[in-house]
């Protein structure tokens, strides 16, 4: 049996390889959307907070899976929430695309939207504003961390297994959370590379790219909504 430390190292390494091999495909469009939506603003802090939020959610999911000590029981309970997160992510990306293209000002989008709760409304209104606070990307990352994803499920199987092997529920929660946090941290470098590559501040005439990017964001958002409803 592997020691706790070696499991964390293994899952950090798994996160790094999965990040460059799989997450770029899955979370890449989200990261590109965030980068494009930031336009000329510095992107390091927003992307850092997005990744911290995503990793914290993985840690939370790992704690639950470790505490339950059963992946299938965990999946039954979180299935609806994860599908909802995928739909929500799609809607957010579509709104970002519409707002970025300048087809509808963010204030109009949110005035037209049904009441979704003051905090959510305020957070996403902030995200749409021209002057954004980097911390606003933390709750966004936390929400987007819930998106269903094969390799995350695979890591959660391991988290549940550590819970089974742990002596108590508390140690199962801790080991599950630790394993998923290690995995999440491992996925950050790949998504940071994508974020930096899609920061177009160096490009002088980038409005055309932003326009095309907005259309792609809307297409990606629609795909996410569709997948969330049919997955």
């Amino acid at each position: 049996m592997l020691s706790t430390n070696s499991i964390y190292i293994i899952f950090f390494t798994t996160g790094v390889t999965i990040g460059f091999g799989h997450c770029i495909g899955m979370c890449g469009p989200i990261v590109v959307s965030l980068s494009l939506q930031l336009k000329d603003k510095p992107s390091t802090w927003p992307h850092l907070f997005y990744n911290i939020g995503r990793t914290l959610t993985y840690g939370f999911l790992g704690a639950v899976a470790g505490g339950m000590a059963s992946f299938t029981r965990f999946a039954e309970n979180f299935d609806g929430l994860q599908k909802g997160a995928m739909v929500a992510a799609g809607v957010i990306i579509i709104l970002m695309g519409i707002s970025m293209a300048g087809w509808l000002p963010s204030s109009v989008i949110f005035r037209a939207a049904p009441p979704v709760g003051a905090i959510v409304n305020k957070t996403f209104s902030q995200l749409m504003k021209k002057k954004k606070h980097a911390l606003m990307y933390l709750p966004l990352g936390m929400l987007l961390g819930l998106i269903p994803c094969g390799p995350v499920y695979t890591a959660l199987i391991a988290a549940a297994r550590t819970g089974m092997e742990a002596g108590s529920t508390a140690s199962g929660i801790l080991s599950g959370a630790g394993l998923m946090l290690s995995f999440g941290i491992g996925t950050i470098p790949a998504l940071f590379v994508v974020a930096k590559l899609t920061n177009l501040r160096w490009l002088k005439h980038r409005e055309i790219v932003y326009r095309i990017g907005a259309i792609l964001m809307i297409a990606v958002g629609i795909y996410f909504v569709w997948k969330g409803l049919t997955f």
Partner: protein
Amino acid sequence: MRENCVKRTLCCAGILFLGLLAFSTFFPGESPAAEVQPDCDIQSGGCQKTLNDRTIELEILPRPVKAMSDLTFRVRILGAPLTGAPSIDLGMPGMNMGRNHVKLEKNSMDVYEGRGVIVRCHSGKTVWQATVNLPDAGKVIFTFDVVY
């Protein structure tokens, strides 16, 4: 003139990159290897393959074999006995899904069993593969369809 050319090239590169990322969303992890077809009808019963002087049979229960549910993996070895218990690695052809390892334990003379879960992939692809690792003897790969 030259500056315009550089701008246009950079612009095209940016658009191309965004396009590739959009493509990767709709076909995540896609690679030529992802075209692999199932060679085993695991939903109907056990599948057999031969490796050197041994026949390896894989059976997954309960049927229908569904993703996101607890499954029993049963491996029967016909031929020379193994030096240790085999194990199974679950994955998708041409797609890195992380390490999903199933430990098997000896159940009877030539039968090994273990519990595992096949996860669901958001690409919607249902072709999975089980790599049965035989200690000191190599490995065999079974490719099959699962129910989502």
